[in-house]
């Protein structure tokens, strides 16, 4: 059962990810990315990370990607135009991709040859209670810092997107 779900959603995630890269239209890419995120959320659930899964959907799929879609609509971004100017990317792009892919997979196989296996519900450590507890005890400082970061981001965004940039 686990294997089925995993392979299903991993498949969806991979397809959508490839789609993100290959689709010509930003909207399509954005929606595919939403697909990736949704399926990743399901995988998180399988890994026992309920809270993170939910916040993945709420924050990423629900807010960030909506923002992307919004901006794409606002700028009415069309199919992207092709006149490449980066010989670097042309030359090394695909090889680098292959190299990274191969190396990463190699390292995963080599680095974690016999780690445990995942079955749904074999670890309940990711509930809101545990996460919240850890968040407000030992990770309190990072949490506060993040809040400040967000404040800065808000201000920055507002300043940047103002009508007149003087």
């Amino acid at each position, binding site marked *: 059962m686990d294997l089925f779900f995993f392979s299903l959603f991993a498949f969806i995630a991979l397809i959508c990810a490839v789609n993100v890269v290959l689709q010509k239209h930003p*909207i399509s890419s954005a*929606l595919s990315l*939403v697909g990736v995120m949704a399926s990743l959320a399901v995988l998180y659930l399988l890994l026992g990370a*309920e*809270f993170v*899964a*939910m*916040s993945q*959907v*709420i924050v990423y*799929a*629900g*807010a960030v990607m*909506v*923002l992307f*879609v*919004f901006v794409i*609509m*606002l700028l*009415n971004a069309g199919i992207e135009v092709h006149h490449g100017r980066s010989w670097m990317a042309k030359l090394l792009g695909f090889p680098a991709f292959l190299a990274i892919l191969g190396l990463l997979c190699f390292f995963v196989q080599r680095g974690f040859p016999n780690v445990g296996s995942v079955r749904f519900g074999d670890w309940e450590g990711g*509930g*809101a209670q545990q996460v919240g507890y850890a968040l407000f005890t030992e990770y309190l400082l990072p949490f506060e810092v993040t809040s400040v970061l967000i404040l800065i981001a808000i201000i920055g965004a507002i300043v940047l997107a103002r009508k007149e940039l003087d």
Partner: protein
Amino acid sequence: MEFLVITLIKLALITFIFMTTLAYLQWVERKVIAHVQVRMGPSRVGPHGLLQPLADVIKLITKEGVMPPHVNGGYYLLAPFLAVFMALISISIIPFGGAIDIPAIQLAGKTFGPYHTMMELASVNMGVLMILAVSSMGVYGIALAGWSSNNKYALLGGLRSSAQMISYELPMSLAIASPLLTAGSLQLRGIADSQAGFYLGFVPKWAIFQMPAPQIFAFIIFMIAAFAETNRIPFDLPEAENELVAGFHVEYSSMTFASFFMAEYANMVTVCSVGTLLFLGGWQPLWPAALGSNFVAPAIFLGAGLICLYHGLNPARPFDRYTLPVFAVVFFGLAGLMAFPPLVPVLTPLFWFLAKVGFLLFVFIWIRATLPRFRYDQLMSFAWKFLFPAALLNLLVTGFLVALVP
């Protein structure tokens, strides 16, 4: 296996009831608005226009689905599907009553049961978060519709709706968060159960009354945000007829058009149920059964039946003589069911839950019939300058109270 069967049965039941409800909500809305505006409302098709929804559905189905040439094919069709899907998903995790216990039955020598199940499709630990997540995904339907139909009004509608939904999600989530502090659970059923009991024997411990932090403000904020989230008047900027023709669904027709409406009504129902569960104590009665809250339901139906009977006996319109007694009989039957002892523990909570949801829905319709529409900048500044700070403050105060008051 047994679980699967029961779930399937529940699924079928809920789907059927819910769909009809959606269809008839339309009728109710039209009726209510009509009476607010001192009109008759639908009254041709069937007695009191009761068959109007059916007619509408037939009409919408049989209509030809026009697909404009300039639209962006795939997404144009995907959008309504997404909208409905996201709207319906959240219903599946909403509990609407206590447990159902079916005693073992002997049938053809085989014993079935005893069966025990909860009045909900799925019980999710993170119910509240799930609701939020799904509702936040709901934007895509509208936004896509607006964008893909390749029409400036539609696009404007889509943009508006996405901006509006993002903006109003914050106060909504904050307003939802504060009762969670008192309930101490993310599971909708747990939250509802945490509001059981009464102060002084008659004041219900619903979140809006619950000590140490009554959530009345949170409730109000939640309802306001809910109006915006469901694109209802006075926040229906995305489909503002007089500015954007019909907003994001200007290019849609027949079934696709209908599905947007379905989505909107489904969202309304969901939001009202969530509000009921979080703030109005779910299926907890308004006053304790000791003071006879169990007899409210039968009494009401009995009263309705009697009124129908009376009007049937001296009718205002000729056909009332035939229709109203039928209703009377139906109502009497319902009253009987409600009063039937074995069913009381099942039906009374259900009744209370539905009553509260119904009331909230009525408020929705009522407001639609009453209030004019916001201007867009007003809408935004209201969200960011008033609603959001208010929700934040409320959450802060609640936190302090919960932390300080033992």
